[in-house]
């Protein structure tokens, strides 16, 4: 009887993990819609191609070597199905953990849940470099980012390995529940390196230093993308509890869902009204970024805050993101969708908020962890982008940029019957 209950728990936890992974997979659709709405119509096909291709590249590279680098094991996932002794092994480790101990679930479900996080990290890069980067250079970067750069920092954090044998982040009191730093800030760091080498879109900054807005072409699409991301985030944070099938873990999962939702709401309302106060108008795109900022900010620790604290943390993210976007423009760092602000600035904020509600985590640990992730991803990305710039070139020609990447990169317009 006990064995059967253990088997049932294994099945429920695996099922929960898979459903959450599928929700996170759906975030790729959210990013695709958000980005296609915030770029100009002439770059829509290209950004959609980029988003769906990067997802596929991420899945292949993480299968080839990424997962092995991050969590150990062998390349190409050999042996992930658990082999002939699967049931006996699972029951043995269940017996060791007990009913309320750590989660035991299918190895394949673990890979599935982890691989969609890599894709999320890579999706962040695509928005920031939109409307001017060569597709081939981007996909080449995706190979390295998802095959090596992300798995390395992942192995130091969630993988528990020492950073080049020097120090172990876990021992220093570092914690990042679902990846404010490991996924979001890492993506933003890679994006920042790319944008610095790529330069702003033509026409974004005038010769006199003034900022020229380049409005997105489809705000219904951007709003749908944000809703999809908001929904997918329940899998992102909820699945990161890793276990569902006992009362205390089921409660933790419920609390994580509640807090994730609360933070998004707080972030949206804060950004909406901060933008209203600063610019005099309700800026939808800022409000959308605000919701995502709240989500990123709560991701580092959605299980310990109260609902009120989560709302406030989200709101702090929503305020920060508006100032961060304006500040990035002052530095002439052109980010069409605000990805660096949403995922970078608010990812860091998320890490720094953890010690407020989680006693087991220290500020110093969070700062060292954030620095480790940022420096590693930023420097290696900068090197990779530089190599790609020298070998392939990373930017389309001025004429291609003016015509739009749809025609120059894909030979296909997104709205061929649309005239303006």
């Amino acid at each position, binding site marked *: 009887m006990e064995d059967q209950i253990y088997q049932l728990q294994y099945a429920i936890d695996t099922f929960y993990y898979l459903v959450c992974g599928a929700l996170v997979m759906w975030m790729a659709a959210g990013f695709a819609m958000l980005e296609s709405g915030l770029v100009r119509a002439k770059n829509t096909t290209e950004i959609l191609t980029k988003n769906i291709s990067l997802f596929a590249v991420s899945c292949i590279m993480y299968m080839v070597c990424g997962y092995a680098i991050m969590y150990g094991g062998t390349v190409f996932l050999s042996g992930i199905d658990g082999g002939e002794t699967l049931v006996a092994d699972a029951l043995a480790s269940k017996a060791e953990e007990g009913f309320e101990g750590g989660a035991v679930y299918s190895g394949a479900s673990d890979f599935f849940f982890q691989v969609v996080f890599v894709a999320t990290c890579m999706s962040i890069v695509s928005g920031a470099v939109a409307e001017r980067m060569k597709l081939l250079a981007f996909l080449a970067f995706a190979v390295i980012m998802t095959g090596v750069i992300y798995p390395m920092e992942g192995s130091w954090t969630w993988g528990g390995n020492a950073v080049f044998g020097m120090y172990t982040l876990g021992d220093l009191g570092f914690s990042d529940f679902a990846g404010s730093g490991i996924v979001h800030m890492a993506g933003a760091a890679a994006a920042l390196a790319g944008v610095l080498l790529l330069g702003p879109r033509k026409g974004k900054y005038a010769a006199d230093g003034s900022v020229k*807005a*380049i*409005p997105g072409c489809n705000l219904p699409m951007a709003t749908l993308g944000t809703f999809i991301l908001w929904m997918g985030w329940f899998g992102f944070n909820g699945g990161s509890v890793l276990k569902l099938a006992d009362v205390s873990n089921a409660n933790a999962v419920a609390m994580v869902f509640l807090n994730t939702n609360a933070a998004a709401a707080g972030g949206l309302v804060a950004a909406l009204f901060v*933008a209203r106060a600063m*610019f005099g108008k309700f*800026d939808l*795109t*800022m409000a959308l970024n605000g919701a995502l900022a709240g989500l990123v900010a709560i991701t580092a620790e959605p299980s310990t805050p109260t609902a009120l604290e989560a709302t406030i943390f989200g709101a702090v993210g929503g305020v920060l993101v*508006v100032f961060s976007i304006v500040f990035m*423009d002052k530095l002439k760092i052109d980010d069409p969708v605000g990805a660096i602000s949403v995922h970078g600035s608010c990812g860091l904020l998320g890490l720094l908020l953890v010690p407020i509600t989680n006693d087991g985590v220290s500020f110093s640990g969070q700062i060292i962890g954030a620095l480790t992730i940022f420096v590693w991803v930023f420097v290696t990305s900068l090197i990779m982008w530089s190599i790609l710039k020298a070998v392939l070139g990373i930017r389309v020609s001025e004429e291609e940029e003016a015509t739009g990447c749809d025609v120059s990169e894909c030979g296909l317009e997104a709205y061929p019957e649309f005239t303006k």
Partner: protein
Amino acid sequence: MKLVTAIIKPFKLDDAREALSEIGVQGITVTEVKGFGRQKGHTELYRGAEYVVDFLPKVKIEVAIGDDLLDQTLEAITKAANTGKIGDGKIFVTDLLQVIRIRTGETGEEAV
């Protein structure tokens, strides 16, 4: 015969069409156009940065009429499209050398 070309605010199109029908104008051609006059463009705000809309959307109406209808036509359009605010548009009148109804081959005033 005259060709009357009027550039008006888009939301005044229905009023103008009605006014022209009432005085017996048989047909009009409408085009969505963009441009600026003394109104110039205006600025809008997106993510904290301003952008200038140089060319504002307008509607162009073209009416071919006999000389006897000219004054009434001008009055009808002027009255219908007037808001009293800047940006109401303009009316241009040009001589029309020839008009041909394609179906029947009629020409001149008969074809208008």
